[in-house]
């Protein structure tokens, strides 16, 4: 297979992209970055996992989930509860409970999380179960569009407020902090931190592959159909509520997993990471990169998280203005996200009659454009079309 044909076959392009991303994440980044930077990258990659789910639910299904923080938090707290119990050792209460709590023993709903298998399963299954219950109520009654967005946002607000209110059992505003160990490994040890990074990178790649498969399956096509015209799908004999539910539940699962892995990477989970503001920030990364394209969403999430760290440390005020501006520019003027720029440029070139060779060159260039952020050349992982960009114009 020659290089030009390689770039024309979507599937081959995607695998090339995933392969390049794997090289970048497993070989380049660990060699090039300091332990501290690698730790930050691990945190960004968790954000990218949430973006993978958002890409499916919002980019493909049109479900603007402004409450991903809830699922992120459920996964994070499930993991952190287990780690806190493990840190405290058998028979002891986690430190914060000794500090604020009046209880002399673990609350009943903490106890199952002492079991590592239960806790691990809960990090994914708990968010998915909550999403399934909530989603089936909401979608079955055909609550959609803006209504759905507002409800999901209210959910994030309520969950954060509830957590803050339960100081004695959830740590309140502080959250669950100062986590020491991860299944027997000391998290203060840089070697173990690296291990956590590798786990996160591997899980992210796995999620990308899984969700891409889902997007390109028959289900993925049906999901787009539901986004385009829900009523029409119903007349074809499908129940659109179920179609949306699957996307919503999968997105909740990815967010839960992200939250769970965020905890060992950063050592803390708190209501400040799951309320309204962080929930919207999850969405914005995907929106800036390109909501309908996996590569765009992942790179956008990493890029925005990186920009936040880089800018907000030195110029907190400037960062807020920049973030606001980013929202406005990306959504008002570039709804397909940054990845759509490549398509726009390509089509403009094509209309200037640069012909076949030019098209192939642009295909290669795509990968270069994607290589700007730490996550590197996932640039090719999704050749997905951005909304309202006719496929016919793609190559």
């Amino acid at each position, binding site marked *: 297979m020659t290089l030009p044909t390689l770039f024309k076959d979507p599937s081959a392009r995607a695998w090339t992209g995933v392969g390049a991303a794997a090289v970048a994440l497993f070989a380049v980044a660990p060699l090039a970055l300091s332990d501290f930077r690698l730790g930050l990258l691990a945190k960004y990659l968790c954000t990218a996992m949430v973006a993978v789910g958002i890409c499916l639910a919002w980019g493909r299904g*049109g479900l*603007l989930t*402004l409450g991903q923080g809830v699922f992120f938090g459920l996964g994070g707290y499930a993991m952190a509860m287990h780690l806190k119990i493990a840190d405290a050792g058998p028979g002891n209460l986690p430190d914060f409970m000794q500090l604020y709590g009046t209880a002399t023993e673990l609350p009943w709903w903490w106890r199952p999380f002492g079991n590592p298998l239960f806790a691990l399963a809960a990090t994914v299954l708990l968010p998915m179960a909550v999403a399934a219950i*909530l989603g089936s*109520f*909401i979608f079955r*009654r*055909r*609550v959609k*569009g*803006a*209504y759905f*967005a*507002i*409800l999901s*946002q*209210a*959910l994030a*607000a*309520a*969950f954060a*407020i*509830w*957590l*803050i*209110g*339960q100081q004695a059992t959830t740590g309140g505003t502080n959250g669950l902090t100062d986590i020491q160990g991860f299944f027997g490994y000391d998290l203060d040890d840089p070697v173990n931190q690296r291990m956590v990074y590798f786990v996160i990178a591997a899980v992210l790649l796995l999620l990308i592959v899984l969700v891409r498969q889902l997007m390109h399956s028959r289900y993925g096509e049906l999901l787009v159909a539901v986004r385009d015209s829900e*009523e029409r799908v119903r007349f074809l004999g499908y129940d659109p509520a179920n179609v949306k539910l699957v996307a919503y539940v999968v997105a909740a699962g990815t967010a839960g997993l992200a939250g769970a892995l965020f905890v060992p990477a950063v050592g803390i989970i708190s209501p400040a990471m799951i309320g*309204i*503001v962080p929930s*919207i920030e999850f*969405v*914005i990364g995907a*929106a800036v990169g390109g909501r309908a394209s996996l590569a765009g969403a992942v790179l956008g999430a990493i890029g925005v998280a990186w920009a936040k760290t880089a800018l907000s440390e030195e110029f907190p*005020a400037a960062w*807020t*203005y920049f*973030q*606001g*501006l*980013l*929202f*406005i520019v990306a*959504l*008002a003027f570039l*709804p397909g996200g940054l990845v759509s720029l490549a398509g726009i440029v390509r089509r403009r070139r094509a209309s200037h009659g640069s012909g076949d060779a030019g098209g192939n060159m642009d295909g290669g260039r795509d990968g270069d454009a994607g290589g700007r952020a730490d996550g590197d050349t996932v640039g090719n992982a999704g050749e997905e079309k951005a909304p309202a960009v006719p496929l016919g114009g793609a190559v």
Partner: protein
Amino acid sequence: MTVILGQTFTGISIGAVLLLIALGLSLTFGQMNVINMAHGEFIMAGAYTTYVLQKSISGAGVSLLVALPVAFLVAGALGALLEWVLIRRLYLRPLDTLLVTWGVSLMLQQLARDIFGAPNVQTRAPDWLTGNITVIGGDDPLTFANSRLFILALAVAAVVALSLALRLTSLGRRIRGVVQNRDLAEVSGISTSRVDRTTFFLGSGLAGVAGVALTLVGPIGPTMGTNIIIDAFLVIVVGGIGQLKGTVIVAFALGVMQSVLEYSTTVSVAKVLVLVAIVAFLQWRPQGLYTLRTRSLV
């Protein structure tokens, strides 16, 4: 018993604040299907307007009364500007509008932080609003705070003014026409873009008035709008799009519910219970309490 009554009254006054905010939203969300997250920052603008006026005018009572129309104009102007610069480009993409206006709201918050500083500020309530009215005396007294009564009166006045304006003025008729059938209104010679801008001005102006009211019950800060705006959006969702009647009923119902539940449980549990109640309600009436019945496929 009087505790419950007192709690109910507090709930009604919370509802009144929600109503003032939601009235504006019912215009912008109801008519244009625009989810303006910056609405919360228009509230903030109204509150800071009150603060600035009180600094420059000595009497607290005078400055409060002056603040009402000025805050209306300031917030209204901000709204009209936002509509003109951004929102009119996004009418067919409501979800994108939500995120774009969230960006605007971030910037406005930061602007407030840069001008007034990050810490909250306070205004002084005029003397005639600081006292209480004793409704039931004796050992177990029931008192209503004057400031909350004032907010209630303000909300009632705003509802009356708005519904009269919608019903009686030609602008109001045009607004209702556009709500009910945008295309038909357009071909009937109504300049929908001008109606849109005016509606946005009115709705945002009402947010400014709500901001003045909020200075009477709490501190003024850059993020004051963020939390309450979600509740106000829920009022619209539950009340039904473009329905004044639904907005009024639901605003008070949610306020009372929140307040009474807070008393019987805790603030945070009450918040969760209210949300559960809303989801349950939407099972029964997914389009909200009142809806314009149409045969449209959507």
